[in-house]
């Protein structure tokens, strides 16, 4: 099995989907010969040509609009938004046009919006955001946020073959940091299935995307202190795998929700509420949310490091929970 980075696995997923289905094509700013600012589509133009790998003007609304329209007409477009931060200039197309379309018309829109998301690269307030919570509130959009190369490819293939709009948020910090064995053929990881990245018995930690690694780091350290952290990686936020979360919580009765987006208004609140609504009798301690501070994302290293929840905060939270 070839060894692939997270970014390579995404590229391999795109290639696999395009080879299998003539209806799949790519569009976005600088995605053709250049291969996109993170090089994810590199080489695909050479293999598939200008018809199937299209550079677009700097027009996020028009890009998302093309994806919507082409999917209505039966294609399976995969559009790259250069940074997830820039979805905001095409926001209305996604939330006003795409999200309610099937509800209103019965017509399904099988398109995918891919975008590098998340921070940690010292590139500040405009190139680091994690915007998933915005879309979470709109019925009609699916949201996938993979954390590993294997997942990235399998979830991407599932997303491309899904009948509905999927926002596929890739963590840019993982693109070239992570490598693992990834099958070179086609496979799908169904949307809406979380995975337990590390089993544990004392505390459940629910997270997704790059925060999985902070959670695992904390878990390893906590183990040395005799605290067993179960790390649940959601993989997709919509659909949400409530069963896996509830199952873990039924065992631990203690939970931390961890995300990179600002705490206020993030999806942490939803997960706390889920546990509170559906597993109240298991609650042995307050559920702790860890999210970013309520500021824009800063550039200076000390500021950015302080901005995100840290491994140490996770450890402290877990300790507080077991001592509760």
């Amino acid at each position, binding site marked *: 099995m070839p060894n692939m980075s997270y970014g390579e696995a995404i590229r391999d997923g795109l290639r696999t989907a395009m080879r299998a289905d003539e209806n799949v094509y790519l569009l976005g700013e600088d995605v053709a010969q250049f291969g996109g600012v993170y090089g994810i589509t590199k080489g695909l133009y050479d293999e598939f040509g200008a018809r199937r790998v299209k550079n677009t003007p700097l027009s996020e*609304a028009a890009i998302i*609009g*093309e994806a919507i*329209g082409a999917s209505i007409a039966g*294609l399976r*477009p995969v559009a790259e938004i250069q940074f997830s931060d820039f979805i905001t200039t095409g926001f209305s197309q996604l939330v006003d046009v795409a999200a309610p379309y099937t509800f209103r018309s019965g*017509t399904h829109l099988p398109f995918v919006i891919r975008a590098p998301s998340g921070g940690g690269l010292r590139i500040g307030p405009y190139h680091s955001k994690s915007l998933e919570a915005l879309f979470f509130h709109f019925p009609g959009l699916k949201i996938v946020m993979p954390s590993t190369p294997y997942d990235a490819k399998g979830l991407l293939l599932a997303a491309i073959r899904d009948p509905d709009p999927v926002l596929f948020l890739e963590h840019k910090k993982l693109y070239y940091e992570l490598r693992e064995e990834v099958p070179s053929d086609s496979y799908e990881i169904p949307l809406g299935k979380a995975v337990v990245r590390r089993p544990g018995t004392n505390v459940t930690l629910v997270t997704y995307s790059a925060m999985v690694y902070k959670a695992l780091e904390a878990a390893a350290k906590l183990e040395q202190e005799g605290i067993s952290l179960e790390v649940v990686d959601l993989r997709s936020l919509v659909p949400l795998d409530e069963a896996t979360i509830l199952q873990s919580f039924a065992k631990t009765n203690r939970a931390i929700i961890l995300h990179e987006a600002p705490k206020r208004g993030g999806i942490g609140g939803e997960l706390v509420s889920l546990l509170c609504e559906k597993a109240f009798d298991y609650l042995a301690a307050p559920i702790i949310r860890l999210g970013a501070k309520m500021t824009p994302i800063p550039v200076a290293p000390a500021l950015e490091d302080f901005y995100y929840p840290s491994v140490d905060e996770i450890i402290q939270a877990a300790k507080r929970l077991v001592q509760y």
Partner: protein
Amino acid sequence: MGLHTIHSSPANTAGNAAAEEVLRSPERLLEIYYYLLLTRMLENKVAYICHNQNPQQPIIIGKGYLSTGQEGISVGAAYALESGDWLAPSHRDMGALMVRGMTCRQIFLQYFARASSPTWGRDGNVHVGDTSKQILFFISHMGSNLPVGNGVAAALQYRGAKNVVLGCFGDGASSQGVVHETMNYASVFKLPIVFVLNNNRYAISTPLHEQCAVEHLALRAAGYGMPGKTIDGNNVMEVYRHVKEAVERARRGEGPSLIECKTMRMGGHGTHDPATYIPKEEFETWKKRDPILGYKNYLQEQGILTEDQEQSIKARIEGEIEEAVEYARTQPMPVAEDLLKER
């Protein structure tokens, strides 16, 4: 008024044989008349119901948004399409919806928000479409249907289909950013789409000169490298001819065009709006230029339309409308649980 035709780039009208053929066929000319009258009479019915229903127990849920006095644009433009072509309608495109095959029943079901409406009562009035007939669903956010039209056009181009998209919007919508992105984008890719701008001089209460600092919005086309024309939107044959030309151009793979059709909104923004902000004289001037009247006179002069034919067309339409209203009225409303049904 300056209702002349501007050619921002050299586009050849003469070569438009397809259009000229239709304009020589009495059957087709009468069909256009039928659609004009159908639109007018259907919308009159909508207005009538709005003004006469019991507000406590309304039949029409919401307001009526009418194209009265502007039917020439929507009918003329849609008539230029062929089978397999797509429509991205705006909210004053009842004529185009009719020409492209939506039925009076569908329209009244939609206005009455019945369970069997094209949106299952989930959306109302002109927020409608029909994918099976290649009609995109209208989106309220002005201009927002145009990039979707681009997307359909991109799919047609991708497949090598020889079909085109008609993208409709208003003078107010023309100030939206998304309209700019769409037109530039369409031109870069030479997408098979024709933009039809219904310039009815108002956006709700806002007159044209508070919307833009140009008299002719077709001037925008030059900035995208596409042909742009300003034409008389109240002359259905002129609309048909120019849109047809643009449609055939798009069909040949030569890219998009912008056709600005000048007209006047002959009433309020919706049936609830008395439009007291529009000077009476404006209405009076434009009333003389009614597109249906003008077209009828032309047909009569040409001996294509007799008084008998006129009466029988009207009677046929009246019947169709009455039948549709009765049908829709007796269909069930959605019930609560329908909300969560997957479609």
